């Protein structure tokens, strides 16, 4: 790009009102239009992969939960899956169903948070608050299941924590809860899409086309918003019994991104309903597995933000060679790219539309110090 075009550089972060997480974004602007962007992560680097090295596998699993406070359950789930795959543990079907219920509830809460944060950045405090209010219901459900609002820690190797077993009362509560959420989110979506002021703010803003999305290796709802039908859930065995659609939108702009999330909430509700209906009887945890050494095992799941990858090997019951790849690291490219050519006020919106979770992303990037 021609250097002369760029007038000045604006830096936001690491603490900023529109971005709750710490990260730095440098915007190169001319006449308030973003010409180029650079997102610096690493502020949040805590080296989770490194400190996991050599931990007993159960302890390591519970540490993965602390990678991210939004998708904590999914990290734990994937880490447990790695161990189970390596040790060839068969888990009871009931446990698998309950894990899926928790994962989908988590997707709902993550997407609601996304919508709320998006509205906050749009400047629409009212919608943001209403969405936070709806989100409270999911948090309450997660608290009922797991015992904690954020780190509920349901899966363990061999099944789920017995505490998270669903009895009749819990099932009933979840049913009521998701019905309420479905209704409320639908109301919200109708209001939202019929508001001309909001629509003019979000249509055509920060679009990402399909080709660029594939080139930048974007994943998750952000990819689906550009029209690519890809969802890791369709490739996961445990999702086989459930019938759901992969939601896509065409434009890849903020509007498409928001709508993808709204519809995915409905799909999640669908999955939870099916799971509750066909919940198999039986035990929830099978502790008969034996520890042995394994090779590096990989596992992919669909986190709320896209494909999440965990892999490690086991040696003496301790984890080795941990690699975690979170969806947001792939989406950073999309964030930088989507902003170009848009107004500064839309810039944060463009970042938020990709649903960044820099906390996930930052946990283990190797910062190479050169002399």
């Amino acid at each position, binding site marked *: 790009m021609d*250097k002369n075009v760029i007038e000045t550089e604006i830096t*936001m972060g690491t603490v900023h009102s529109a971005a709750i997480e710490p990260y*730095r974004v440098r915007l190169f602007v001319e006449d*308030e239009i973003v010409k180029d962007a650079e997102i*610096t992560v690493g502020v949040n680097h805590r080296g989770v992969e490194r400190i996991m090295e050599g931990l007993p596998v159960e302890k390591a699993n519970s540490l993965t939960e602390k990678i991210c406070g939004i998708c904590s359950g999914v990290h734990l789930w994937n880490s447990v899956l790695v161990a189970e795959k390596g040790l060839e543990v068969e888990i009871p079907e009931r446990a698998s169903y309950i894990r899926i219920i928790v994962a989908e509830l988590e997707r709902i809460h993550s997407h609601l948070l996304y919508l709320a944060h998006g509205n906050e*950045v749009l400047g629409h405090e*009212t919608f943001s608050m209403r969405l936070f209010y709806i989100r409270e219901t999911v948090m309450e459900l997660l608290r009922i299941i797991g015992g904690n609002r954020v780190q509920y820690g349901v899966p363990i190797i061999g099944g789920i924590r017995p505490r998270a077993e669903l009895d009749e009362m819990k099932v009933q509560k979840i049913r009521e809860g998701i019905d309420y959420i479905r209704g409320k989110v639908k109301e919200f979506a109708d209001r939202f899409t019929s508001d001309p*002021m909001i629509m003019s703010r979000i249509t055509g803003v920060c679009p990402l086309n399909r080709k660029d999305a594939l080139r930048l290796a974007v994943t998750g709802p952000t990819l689906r918003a550009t029209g690519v039908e890809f969802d890791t859930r369709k490739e996961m065995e445990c999702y086989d019994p459930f019938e759901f659609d992969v939601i896509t939108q065409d434009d890849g702009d903020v509007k498409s991104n928001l709508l993808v999330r709204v519809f995915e909430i409905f799909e999640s509700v669908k999955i939870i309903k099916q799971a509750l209906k066909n919940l198999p009887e039986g035990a929830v945890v099978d502790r008969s597995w034996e520890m042995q050494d394994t090779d590096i095992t990989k596992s992919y799941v669909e986190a709320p933000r896209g494909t999440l990858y965990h892999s490690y090997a086991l040696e003496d019951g301790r984890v080795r060679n941990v690699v975690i790849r979170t969806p947001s690291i792939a989406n950073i490219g999309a964030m930088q790219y989507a902003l170009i050519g848009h107004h*500064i*006020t839309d810039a944060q919106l463009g970042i938020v539309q990709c649903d960044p979770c820099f906390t996930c992303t930052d946990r283990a990037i190797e910062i190479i110090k050169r002399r």
Partner: protein
Amino acid sequence: MYSILGVIGTIIIGFIVSLWLPGLERKLIHARVQQRIGPPISSPGIMAPLKFFFKQTIMPYSPLPRLYNSLPLIGLLSVLFIFLFTVPETYQLGAFASIVAIVGFLKIEEVIYVFMGSLSKSVMSLRMPFPDLAKGAKHPNVQRSFLEDISAMRAFRLIAFGSFPLYIALFVPAVISGSISLGDIVAYQQVHGPILFSAAGVIGAIVFFIGYMILLNEYPFVILKAKADVIEGPYMEYAAKWRALVYIMRGFLMFTLATLFSVLFLGVPPSIFTWGILVNILVAVLFPMLMASFSAFAPIFTFKQFYPVTFGATILGVVALLAAFI
């Protein structure tokens, strides 16, 4: 003597009322729309500035800290002058109590934002210590500016076009009554009834309201201090009593503009010696409430939406002017 007492009394009353306005806005409208309890009415308008008065005064980080700190005072004074001109006791001052003078003082109000923006150097933008200047960066040698500089640029643009609706609306009553002096406008309305009840008056009032929201930088016209990018914009570095002044200035501007409306469109000047002041207070309370019910449902406008809205409002204002001529 009597009239000076009246002026001072009116100012005090206006001042007291203006302190309650932010709280009314927050508690009665925003909190209700958002289905929560909300803060007590006195908190945002009275207690917050009072609290800031009792905080330790620190020098703002700015190239000209004293000038920067004195800006809210200048703003407050110019608002005070506008308010003074609307008080009937000052109408015999002639040239001052006219629309042109008011427009002039409103301009000061806008210009200080430019200064505030360019003088503030907050820790929240460039001064945040973070090692991100690498040789391998995308554009290593670009000049870097503070977030507040963007605010200053925006304020500059707003001077150019943002206040058109308000100014045009101010001239509607002048055209109808055939004089730019406030005294004449009030006298005209005492004879012919409030201007608000004519076609031109209604359109003019709508345009005035839009201009009122723009001048107060309320959502959706909040781009000057949009949380999504510039955090608080020009006010970033005000601390302690200077921040209190900023709060008070805004509340008083709300009241003054509403008074201006009741003088120009209803023909009721504020004076503690008549019951008319109740009308003033009513308008001053109604305006923020109306504004709050708009702002609770609106996102921030970027310039893409801002231009058409102000343009539309300006056209509407011109229509009102034409209607006034006929």
